[in-house]
């Protein structure tokens, strides 16, 4: 069953530092070609760890569409 929430990074503001990728327990978030973070929505369980660690605070936890 899909989680209620999902991580949504702001691509234009992401610095691609990889902090989110490092803490994700499900390997659901990665840095795409050194440019910005992307989330695999099938793996993301909405735990919010990436959002808490993102230094720029540009990963929002949103209700899964």
């Amino acid at each position: 069953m899909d989680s209620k929430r999902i991580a949504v990074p702001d691509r234009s503001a992401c610095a691609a530092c990889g902090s989110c990728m490092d803490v994700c327990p499900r390997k659901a978030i990665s840095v795409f070609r050194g440019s910005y973070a992307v989330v695999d929505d099938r793996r993301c369980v909405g735990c919010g760890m990436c959002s808490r660690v993102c230094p720029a605070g540009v990963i929002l936890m949103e209700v899964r569409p």
Partner: protein
Amino acid sequence: MKSVRSAKRHWYHYLWLYSLFFFAAGFFNILFAWLGLVSFLLPLVFAFGFGTKGFCNRYCDRGQFLRMFGGQLGLSRGGSMPAWMKGKPFRYAFMVFFFAMFGNIIYTTWLIAHGAGSLSEVVTILWSVRVPWQWAYAGGVEPWVASFAFQLYSLMLTSEIIALATMLWFRPRSWCVYCPMGTLTQLVCKRKASSEEKMQEGDFAK
């Protein structure tokens, strides 16, 4: 800030030890500061060679240091960065300023190598405070070699102080948001990704 533990420990999570080694070694022998060039070259190898920010993402000793002390040990207050600090104008301006300072180091080294300047055995913190550092240099190399080491150590120590300040105040790896090397390699990666995409589109059009 509540400490956030990584999903799994890897060897690169201990690279913060290299940061400690670098600054400790440079304290006793300034020539170790030349190792600082690794932090300039490796991110570029990842960006130009592989089109990734692999260095920032895993192998940056400073990033690991900030994660360890700010995140794992919980020294970070965890506040939000102001919008201007994470915006592109500041990030690009800081990158240009930082590399201008690096260019100045190379120019000064060049002058000394050509006999037009003299070696000063000081470490300059935050581009203004000159701290005598003569104990770390016993001679034995060309003056320009020592001069470059003193200046590079100054730049590394200055950026470390700024990084630690924002680590304490904001989130642990807030330095990574405006890190000049990180901004530069992200630009390289974005350019590389978009040009490869265009090439692929060209292939499909054939």
